[in-house]
């Protein structure tokens, strides 16, 4: 199957340029979406620097690190998938995309374990917050920010996995080749962004 030239574009190169530009602009909106939460983080960290340090110690650095490695590896497999799709090896690309989806699943699994621990320790923020030994005023705020940022990020992981499954199935059917690999490229870009957000979240939440 060839990449189809839509009737309103003059050349396939222009159409590709448009598709890439559209994706990058969309990624810009995603960055701004998370930027609001990062502002919130900055503000409350500035207001409660000591408490943030104490509260951060309640996070499991080991699990966080595992998740970081898992996500970065999945970005590698997505990049490789694009590499193979572009070199007429659509099936290989499909396999790599499914590996990335599995990595996404693993990430969510680890996240679920972490969340369960937090629930049990009573670290759910707001009126549910009843952690012993963490009574400083900003503690609940740390976990508010923690759950909001990682929650929004996890939502993006789920959406990204959906996108990768969709493209992976098409790749497995042999749809992509040197002249038609745009969906893999764009889906990959989205996954890289999801990854990139985590690369900022990980040090800010786990390593402070």
């Amino acid at each position, binding site marked *: 199957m060839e990449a189809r030239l*839509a*009737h*309103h*574009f003059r050349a396939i190169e*222009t*159409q590709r*340029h*448009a598709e890439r*530009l*559209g994706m990058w*602009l*969309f990624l*810009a*909106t*995603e960055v*701004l*979406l*998370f*930027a*609001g*939460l990062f*502002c*919130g983080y900055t*503000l*409350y960290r500035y*207001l*409660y620097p000591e408490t943030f340090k104490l509260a951060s110690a309640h996070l499991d650095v080991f699990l966080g690190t595992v998740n970081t490695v898992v996500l970065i590896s999945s970005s590698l497999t997505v990049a490789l998938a694009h590499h193979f799709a572009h070199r007429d090896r659509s099936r290989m690309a499909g396999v790599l995309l499914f590996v990335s989806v599995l990595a996404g699943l693993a990430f969510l699994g680890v996240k679920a374990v972490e969340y369960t621990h937090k629930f049990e320790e009573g670290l759910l*923020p*707001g*009126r549910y917050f009843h952690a012993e030994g963490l009574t400083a*005023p*900003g503690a*609940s*705020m740390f976990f*508010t920010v923690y*759950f*909001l940022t990682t929650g929004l990020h996890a939502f993006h992981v789920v959406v990204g996995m959906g996108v990768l499954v969709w493209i992976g199935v098409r790749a497995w059917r042999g749809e992509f080749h040197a002249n038609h690999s745009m969906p893999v490229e764009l889906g990959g870009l989205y996954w890289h962004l999801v990854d990139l957000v985590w690369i900022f979240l990980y040090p800010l939440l786990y390593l402070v």
Partner: protein
Amino acid sequence: MSTAPVPASFVPGPEDPAPGPPHYLKDGTTVRSWLLTVDHKRIAILYLVSVLVGLFLGGMFAMALRLELLTPGPTIMDALTYNRMFTLHGVTMIFLFMIPAIPAVFGNFFLPIMLGAKDVAFPKLNLLSWYVYVIGGALALWGMVHGGADTGWTFYTPYSTTTPTKVLPILLGASIIGFSSILTGLNFIVSIHTLRAPGLTWTRMPLFLWSLYGTSIIQILATPVLTLVLLLVATEAAFGFGLFDPARGGDPVMFQHLFWFYSHPAVYIMVLPAMGVISETISTFSRKNIFGYRMVAFSSLGIAFVGFFTWGHHLFVSGQSTFDAGAFGILSMFVGVFTAIKVFNWVATLYKGAISFKTPFAYICGFLYFLVFGGMTGVAVATVSLDVHWHDTYFVVAHFHFIMVGAVMMAFLAGLHYWFPKMFGKTYHEGWGLVAASLIVLGFNATFIPQFLLGNAGMPRRYYAYHESFQALNVASTAGATLLLFGFVIIAIYLVLAFRFGGPAGPNPWGSRGFEWVTASPPITENFDGEVEVTGTPYDYQEDQPSVRVTPEAE
């Protein structure tokens, strides 16, 4: 009701005799052909219908408010209903009408035509944006019917997270509508980058497109922050994490920062396209090249840029530091500089032009007056020492209504009257057009000038009851609003009649040099019946014809 008598034989419609592809309104007439269309012109019409519903609702809420304020005490509703009314008025007017009004209606319709293209870059995304808008709007309306919210359209925390009224669906609705705005902006930027016809360089682009480009940048970069902050408030209202609750270590002012980071640039989402409409029409109706093309074009980007650094002027009395307040005040005044560049260039365009005083031109005059007056009071409220006196009074209400309702509404009506013949292929009654325009300009003045005086005298905004000494001016304001309502009713009547019975408009009734006027009225689905090549600017009145060549396709 049209200027030319309509012959009885005219029933089949203003089709040209040569058999060609049907125009976009005739290309499929089923409901399905409308609801699944990817034609940018039909999507524009879908948007037009929806934003007019928004305008109608918002207008009704406004009339209810004005009636209530006729007397100092209770008049027709209780205090809670009043609070809900002004919230609904703000939410509908801003999210359902004002933000999509010019970009999603006239932008969708004319951006591809002005580019010499067949459609926007992503037609399906374009349709999706309308559905997202409708879903968000429906959710918000559902919330309004089932109790409404009493927070004001600004949803200030911590009140908005604790009010017992139905604030949740309205918050979610507004944030969903945000996505539709993002999709439109994204589509426009990509279209302008990739779909310009051969010969259409950046500096030959119609100024309306420059202003839409600036608008789209704001839509893309600012709207996600609104989405986020409204979702945060919704989370707060649902779970009570305490993010904005000072009692639990939260900071309510963070909400104001994030909210105004979107909502101040959002004013430029409304006013920049309006300025674009004026640039197009003012050249046509003075039959003269636009003065200072580059300055007008770049000042659009200037406003879009500096608009991102002005949000703090909403927080002058929210405990912001004196230095921040001063800095935001001065940055805000830069908007005035860029706006003034435009105004001077427009006035210079009029100078020694062959002015034809048609209905759109009446609205241009209204626009210039409201923009200058509203803009000057804007510089005044950007001055910290003055704003402390005027903050949260009717002075501010009058100021932003002069810009957002006065200027933007004038431009919307100018565009509607200017492009109506192109969009529907019919002419409307010029005389009634001028009558309605005069009523509306008069009505706006009568409504909002008293509010400037009320605010200066100290009447706070959003108050249900007021001191008896304010009554005379409030009655004047309500009387003005009634005039305004009459103006809109007249417009609705003659435009509906024109749509049904109007005479054929012909491709270029105004003798404009704009690129959109070389197409048929109404345009065919593919816009042009051939390849488009642009040979000059869209404002060259030395030429007899618009500087566009359409070569019929060889195949």
